[in-house]
Structure formats: structure tokens, C-alpha cells
């Protein structure tokens, strides 16, 4: 390139202008490449110009050098931009594929956790946030663990509440998960905060709302200083988390030999928001758990000091809750293992 008496900086500026217009006017990848070689290549115009740098007087070198670098950078940026424009245009104008992409893709098997397990897991996770751990106990129990330790005399109508499957004189299939309370207290000292999910058994023949075996979740909190207010608040916390903020609870007197005071817990019906529907029998409330403050007689049975420790306990049916939540009309569906049923919860 002729110098024409112009300074190197002026010439670099010219290279910049010409280079930008050359790149911008390129219409395909090849033309872009040509421009790149011409201006930015190893022996391109910029390299040539910069090779003259060494002949300049010392005081001009820095500024001219910076100009060279700036021009080079600018051309590179322009080039990349142009290249992506060209590619985008090419992609847009590419001929359409001959494959019918509405054909179904290749899938894996559907799978899924049982809806009752989902409910159990969710309940456990919520209570974990307020310090609970998970415990289990045997399904075959002694009558002592299932009844006596829980303040239920064997020869008492309270035992009628549990129509029991006996296996031997003093062995039975547990009628509730409450014996886990006794087992945990026998094995540990407070503070205790445990949940015990598991299967229980009652002699209820199969129908739409009864099964001879069903899941229950027991909860037990024992420590110094636990009172009814804490109990109510903990249950409220759970209800708001599980059924949604804004769900209200209602505690009603009830009777369980192992709690005193005892309470049945209702929540505002989550199907009709409390306005009354067939699920809540028009009351706006759904009963979800039995609960109460641990009866000192239970502490006595497991050797705890009932003056020192207080606590609360509760029990609920995750199967029933799953049926309400997913509107499953018949409990037998939970235990049939029908693939068409299970895939709905995948």
C-alpha cells in the first residue's frame, strides 16, 4: 500500500473502513474468509501495516500501536458478527427436513412412587423441619406394647375400638402405630421427636373405605416444657405446610387412652375451601388426625418421670389423606397394584 505521505495511523484508519465494508458486504462463509485473510491474516493488511511500527519515532509508537490493536479488534468483532448473521440466514433458508417430527419419540418406561408413599414422605419432610426423626417398630406386637403400655386395659371397651387380628394369646398384628411410642421411649431418653409410619391392622372387611391393613403415621414429642400451646402450634405448622397456607385447624375433644387431653384435628375442607361439599359432608371440615398430650400413665409404663416430662402425640392415615388429596374413591385401588392406577402418580 502506498504511503502517500500519510501517517501510519491514518492508513490504519483507512484499512479499518475498507475492512469493515468488505466484511459487511460478504454474503457467505467463503467471502468472509477471504476478507479475513486479506485484512487479518498472517500477511494481511493489518500485519503489514503493523510491521512498519518499528520504523516510527519512539514517541509515536505507543499511540499508533494502540490504534493498530483497536482496528484489529474491531475487524475481528465485525467478522464474527457477520459470520453468525450468515449462519442464521442459512439456517432460516435451509430446506425443511424430510423427517416428520410429529412422530412420537423414543421413551423410557413410566415409573412412580405409590401415592401413599408420596404422602408419607411429604409428612415426614415437614415434621423434619421442626426437629423430628423417623422411627419404626414391628408389625407383630405383644398385647402389652399395643394396649397395656398405652393405657388401654385388655378387658375394657376401649379395646373394642380396635378389632384385633390375634396370632396367639398375647401376640397380635398391631392395631395402630402407637406402640412405636412405647418402644422409642423405652430405648431413648428425651428430647424425643419421632414420626413412625407403618402398616396397621384391623378386622375390617374390605369395602370402598375399609381395608384390613392400612398405613398410619404416629408422631410423638417428649421433652421438658412441652405444653398444649406448643402442640397446637406444631400441628398448625404442619397443616399450613401440607394443606397450604390459609388452611385453618379446629381441635375437638376426643378420647384416646394414651393422651389426655385428647383432641381430634379437623382442617378446612381442601376440596371446597370450607364452603361444604360431599367430601366434608357439608360441614366444611375434614378430620385428619387424632392427637393429644401424652397421658402420664404412658410415661409411667415406660419408666419416664411424668412430672419432669410432658409431650404430645398424634396419629393420622396417609392412605386416607392420599384418597382425599387425589380424590381416589375406593381404598382398594391403593392395594391392587393396577398399572393404570399407578401410572397416574408417576
Amino acid at each position: 500500500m502506498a504511503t502517500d505521505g500519510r501517517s501510519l495511523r491514518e492508513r490504519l484508519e483507512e484499512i479499518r473502513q475498507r475492512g469493515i465494508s468488505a466484511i459487511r458486504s460478504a454474503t457467505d462463509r467463503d467471502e468472509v474468509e477471504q476478507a479475513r485473510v486479506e485484512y487479518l491474516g498472517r500477511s494481511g493488511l493489518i500485519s503489514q501495516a503493523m510491521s512498519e511500527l518499528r520504523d516510527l519515532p519512539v514517541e509515536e509508537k505507543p499511540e499508533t500501536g494502540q490504534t493498530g490493536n483497536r482496528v484489529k479488534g474491531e475487524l475481528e468483532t465485525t467478522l464474527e458478527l457477520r459470520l453468525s448473521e450468515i449462519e442464521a440466514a442459512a439456517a432460516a433458508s435451509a430446506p425443511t427436513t424430510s423427517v416428520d417430527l410429529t412422530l412420537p419419540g423414543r421413551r423410557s418406561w413410566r415409573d412412580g412412587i405409590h401415592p401413599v408413599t408420596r404422602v408419607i414422605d411429604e409428612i415426614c419432610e415437614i415434621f423434619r423441619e421442626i426437629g423430628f426423626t423417623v422411627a419404626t417398630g414391628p408389625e407383630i406386637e405383644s398385647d402389652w406394647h399395643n394396649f397395656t403400655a398405652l393405657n388401654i386395659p385388655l378387658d375394657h371397651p376401649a379395646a373394642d375400638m380396635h378389632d384385633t387380628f390375634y396370632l396367639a394369646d398375647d401376640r397380635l398384628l398391631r392395631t395402630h402405630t402407637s406402640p412405636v411410642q412405647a418402644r422409642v421411649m423405652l430405648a431413648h431418653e428425651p428430647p424425643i421427636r419421632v414420626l413412625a409410619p407403618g402398616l396397621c391392622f384391623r378386622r375390617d372387611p374390605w369395602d370402598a373405605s375399609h381395608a384390613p391393613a392400612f398405613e398410619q403415621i404416629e408422631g410423638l414429642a417428649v421433652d421438658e416444657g412441652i405444653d398444649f400451646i406448643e402442640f397446637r402450634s406444631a400441628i398448625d405448622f404442619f397443616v399450613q405446610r401440607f394443606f397450604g397456607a390459609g388452611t385453618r385447624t379446629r381441635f375437638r375433644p376426643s378420647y384416646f387412652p394414651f393422651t389426655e387431653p385428647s383432641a381430634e384435628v379437623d382442617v378446612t375442607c381442601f376440596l371446597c375451601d370450607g364452603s361444604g361439599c360431599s367430601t366434608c359432608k357439608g360441614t366444611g371440615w375434614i378430620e385428619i388426625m387424632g392427637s393429644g398430650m401424652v397421658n402420664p400413665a404412658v410415661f409411667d409404663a415406660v419408666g419416664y418421670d411424668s412430672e419432669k416430662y410432658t409431650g404430645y402425640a398424634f396419629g393420622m392415615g396417609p392412605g386416607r389423606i392420599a384418597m382425599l388429596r387425589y380424590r381416589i374413591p375406593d381404598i382398594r385401588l391403593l392395594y391392587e397394584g393396577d398399572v393404570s392406577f399407578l401410572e397416574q402418580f408417576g
Partner: protein
Amino acid sequence: MDVSVNWLRALAPGMQGSATELADRLSLQAIPVDRVVSVGDGLEGIVVARVVEAARHPDADRLTLCKVDAGRDELIDVVCGAPNVEQGALYPYVPPGESLPGGFVIESRKIRGEMSHGMLCSEKELGLGRDSGGILRLDGEFTVGQGFAEAMALPDARLELDLTPNRIDLACHLGVARELAPDDGPGAVPPPFDGPGWDASWADGVSEAEAGGVRIVIEDADRCNRYLGAIVRGITVGPSPEWLQARLRGAGARPINNVVDATNYVLLELNQPLHAFDLARLGGSEVRVRAAEAGEKLRTLDGVDHELTPVATVIADAETAIALAGVMGGEDSEVTLDTTDLLIECAAFDPRHTRHTARATGLATDASYRFERGIDETGQESAIRRCVELILAIAGGVADSNGLRVGSPPPANRVVALRISRIGRVLGLDLSVEEVTRLIAPIGFDTRPKAVDSDVLLVTVPGWRGDVTTEADLLEEVARRFGYDAFPRQPRSFRPSAVPDCADRGRADEVRSLLVSRGLYEARSVPFVPAGRSAESRIPLLKPLSAAEGFLRTDLIPVLLGRVEHNWSRGHRDIRLFEVGTVFGRRAGDQAELPADATPEQRDAANPFSEERRFAFVLTGARLPVHWGSESPDTDMWDLVGLVEELAEELGFGTVEPGLEPDESSERTFGFDSWLDEAVVHVGGNGGLTGVAGRVRATMIDAPRWSAPVFAGEFRLDPIQTEDQREYQSLPQYPAVSRDLAFTLATSVSVADVERTIRAAAPPLLTSVRLFDVYEGDKVEEGRRSLAWRLVFRAPDRTLTDPEVDGAVAGVVHRLEDDLDVRIRAS
């Protein structure tokens, strides 16, 4: 238990609120109310009428032409289709233009040619009951033309209570009225009857007493704490007055006659079961409370014959049993229309003995229900007096001035100490003595502070609250009267649980997430199985619901196979299920007899049964979901083995070992070897056998022709490692060299043996050994097969040279040739 709101209002004047509001208050403060039912709404136009004449319809056998007096100037013609219409009797009558409950308007119309102006109604048509078998005959003192609703004390509302076992005091109207009575009023008080009073002088005795020509004997004091008797002579048995019938109907009881109605009334009002004997039919004019004799026979009021054993307690006269104590009267001493003299019984039968009597005879009655739960023994005298006074008022007669009273005196009311500080600790409420008193005094608890300790309130428990025995029971009274919903909500700080998470839970979670990631559904089942091919270890339920669910399962697989059959029956061919659950067995050896006061540990040690947590899966049908672009062959043995290998590796519970024998030392073996074909994979762990898997024998399942082979596996949960034992291995810095090696060898040599031999022969440079081809056929000698392996070598600190690798491979080849008689095909 049904209660009538009208009755409650009569017992507690000033009780405010609608039936629904009363029900809500009961639910929130005492016991659940299942339902509130309005009774007798829409009866405004219906009147009491007398059928003056009844004649057969000329054209219809089943119809009756009636002349009805409804208090108007002239008689009205009504055609009636009821079988029980009777000349002279009173019935509810709907005049033309008036309507039945529900709005159906009655018009004059012709029935088979005869005009009918209005209608005589059944209980069902009036919405009062279920009886539609005939029109409702009104027995008692009514005025013709009187409004029917007014005559029947309607409208009313019925509260259907869901009684809890502790609150037996709420099985009567007075008990419910106490809960609802205004706190500032006189409480709930039974109103007096319109008739003479009865102030008895009592003939007392510990085991027997005699008065008015009647003797009462308690032979066995264990069975009966007390027996009160009253004698009423010269009564007239007949229908009860309408107010009494209305009370009984309102509470869901059927009026029978004035004597029986009187005892039922007192039962429903005061909770005291009473019984009236026809005194003339008591042999020897005496009653004895005793154990039944073996083989003794008794026909109860319901007409059922019982043959008794000494477990049952009976009331007997001088000769024979005449009633089941606390359960039901006998037919022979029943009050009839001819009865003139009565012995009224008000006894305190023992709860346990009553339960045994009821069980032995298969009866459950209103009386036995209350005796089993405990009656108010302090309220018996007032109850028998109320019954006598009611009978005098409605059946006439004269009461003997002497009552009989046998047994121990009524117990004193229990006094329970309640600490104000305990209310603070358990309930979190800061209440004063006065506030506590205000809460519980209106329901009958008297309080007085203990002189020496201002923290303690001495609470006298009323006789009807047998359930209140401890301070904790009083705390419940305070809490529910305070109102559970009135408690403040204040989240408290807490200490986290000292109980570690149980390991099985984590194991089950791992199994679930792994099997779900392999495309299986989780099933849950009830662990009952039919007797079928019974195993020794199988545990029978003592009282199963059905033969199909008579035993506890010893393995999970059979239950899962049942699920597979269910899915087949719904037309599903591809079924992939798993379950995590418990199996049951028997412990070896004899268990010692347990003393009654055995410790919990001793009880566990004496458990003859054992249980174990396991998981199992079944796979059948296509290997992959159907896709138009590729074949999907059926699941086969190698899918099963692959899944088991992955499970064993990822859950860390052992290695897959083809020939492992079932482990006899374990309490529960995997008893379903017979369910599986010989191609069984046993998974062995450190502690012995942890599981088995294989193809299910076709004979063991009811498979449709279009089904695919079924594969199943079952594993113990406890060998699963939940600790994360992974450790980082530094990434290789130098390249690997791989060599392929193909050789033939006898088919009797297992691949596992070959792999072991290769690994044993190679130096640590060998980093992986992988089988990539198996061939058996024409191109190799019979009895031999060809295996092709890829061996990968790598050194941690340098690039391997060819000679080094060649040397290592040569070592492997020598070893294979020497040990396994292999012939190299290519390398």
C-alpha cells in the same frame, strides 16, 4: 346415641341456640355430633282424626272406606289403603289442600269410583320414621281435630352423637343437657312429674333384704355391687301418654307400654338401666343375683333361647333364671297387659361380668352398653324413685313404702387434686383458682382449695363421671371447657430429637429411588395370603376375615405375582412392579411362659414370631416401551441379571452368585425357590444370602396365552449399605492400552471362573476386563464355546510400552491355557 333437642330444652330451661348451634357446641366442647336431623317439619296442616266407621271398598279388597272425624261439623269420606286401619282408632289426617312434608299437596279425588277427601298417613309419609307398613296409629289421650305436630310435641331435632368410650355420661339427655345448660343458670334438672311422690324407707341388707313380701338376694357380690328394688301394685298397663311417647320417639326409641316406656324414659334421661318384672310371675316372690348354672336355659325378651354357662350372670327367682343380669329380661317375667304388680330393679352390675354375659349370649343392649362402661352408682336411688313416680303418674297403682336395698353402700364421690401450676405446665394456661372453678363447676365438679397448699385445688368428681380419675383427666376438662380453639398459637423453640433416624427407612428410600429410576412402579399390598401350598413357617390369623386372607405372607413375591395376575386380567402385558414390605415367620425353639408382670424386653424375647423387611420386584413384557422405530423384545433373563447386578452394586449388599445355596441358618429363608425356574440368581452378602431372583415357573401363575415370561427377585433390606462409601480416585494421567483376546474353552467353565483367572494372572496394570462376545456353534468344536474379551491396561505413572503389554497378555494366556484349557483364536 340419638338425643332429642326438645327433651334437652325441657331439662335445661334457658338453653340458647338452634339445634345446629347446639351440635357445634357439643362437637367443640364434648363429643362429636355426626348429624343433626330435623323431625316433624312441614306438618302444620295435619290433624289428629278418628276413624268412626271403616267398611270394605266395594271394588277393591285392599281398600277401606272410612268415615273420619277430624273435629269438623261433618264426617269426611276417606279411602284408605293401609292394612291396619281400624274403626275407632286415631290417626294423623291430611285434609285436601294441605301438604305432606316435602310439599306434596293432597287433593280430593276418586279412588276406584269412591271419593276420597284427604289421606291418613304412615310414619314414613310424615318423615318421622321408616315404617311404611301401615298408617300411624295414635295411642293415648288426643283430641280429635288437634294439630298433629302439637300433639306429637313436634317439630323437634335429633342429634346423632358419636359417643367416645370415656363419656358414657353423655349417653343420656341429662348428661348432654349438663354440657349445654347456661353457666349462670340452675344447670340441668329433671322436671317433676304430675303425680304422687315416692319417699321410700329402705330395707337394707349386705347380701339380702326383704320387704313388701319380696326378697332380694345377691349371691355373688363380685357380680353385682348393689340391687335396689321397688314394688308398685295395682297398676294398669296400657299405652303411654303422648308426651312420653313423643320423648321416646324423639330419642329414637319405640313406645311399647307405659311400664316399659317408663323404664326406658329413665334410662334415656338419667342413664340408669332399669327393669320391671311382673311380680306375679316371680316364683317365690324373690329375685337372686347369681352365676348361671351350667346348661341353664332362658328365653330372653327377643324370643331367643339361650343355654347358659356360669360365665353369665342371671337374675333368678326361687326356681329358675328369669333375666340376663344387666343385659336383657326374660320372656317369662315380662310385663304384659295383664300385669298389675311390679318389681322394679335398679342394680349396679359389674362391668366385666356384664361384658362376659353379653358376649356369652351374643347380645348387646342399651343396658349392657352402659353397665360395661360403668353407671353412676351414686344416682341409683334418685333413678328408681323417678321411675316409680313416673309409673304412678301414668299407670296408677300404689308404691310400697318400703324399697329394698341390697349390697354395698354407694361409693363416695372421688376427690382428685388439681395443681394450678400443672395447668400452666401441661396446658400453657395461666388460670386462677376462680377461673378454673368457673370452667368446671357448671358441669358438676365441686372445687375447694386445699388448706395447706394454695397451688392445689381439691376437685370432687360427680358420680356420673367415672372416667375422671386423675389430674390429667381434670386437665382435659379444663382445656375443653376453656375451648381448644381459644388456646393461643405460639410456636415454641424446641430441641431436636435425640432419636436417630431408623436405618430401614433410608434403605427403603434407596431401593425406591433406584427401582423407580429403572422404570418400575411401587405397589403396596396387604400382607395376607391364602393357605395354598402351606409352609410350616406360615402364620395363621386366629380369626381371619376370609380363607383367601388367612395367613401372613412369608415372602413378597407371591403377593406381587397376584398383582401381575390382576393386571393381566385388565389386559396389561407389560408389568413392572416392586414393593417394600414385611414378611413373617416363626422363631426356632420354644419360648418360655411369660409371667404376668414380664418386662417389655422379656415379652420381646418370648415372641414366637419373627419379621423381616424386604423388597421384591416383578418384570414381564416388553423390555422397552413400544416404539415405531425399533423392535422391543420381551424382557429376558439378562435384563433380570443386569438389574440384580445393578442393585447389588449400587445398594452395596453383595455379589451375584449363580450357585449359592439357600441359607438355612437364617430365621427366614427365601422360601420361594419353588416359585422360580432353575435359572436362579442368588445374591450373597457378608452375612449370607441376601436375595434370590429368577424366572417365575409358568405353573405358579395363571398366565394368559399372550403374556410374556415373568421375572422376579426378592431381597433383604437390612444388608443394604446406606453409608456413602465413595472415595475419589485420581484421574488417569497416562493413556490406556487395550487388547482383545478370543479363545475357545469347554462350556462347563463359567464366565465368572474365566474372569477370575484373567484377573489373577494379570499384574495391577490390568484395569478392566470386559466380555464382548460369546459364540457357540458350527465354527467351534462341540462342547466348547468361544469367548472374546477386551483387556485394558494402564500404568499410573508412565505410558505403557508394547512389549510390557504383550508380556502381560502372554502371562494371562499361559495361565488360561494351563488352568482352563483354552485355545487362543486371536489376540
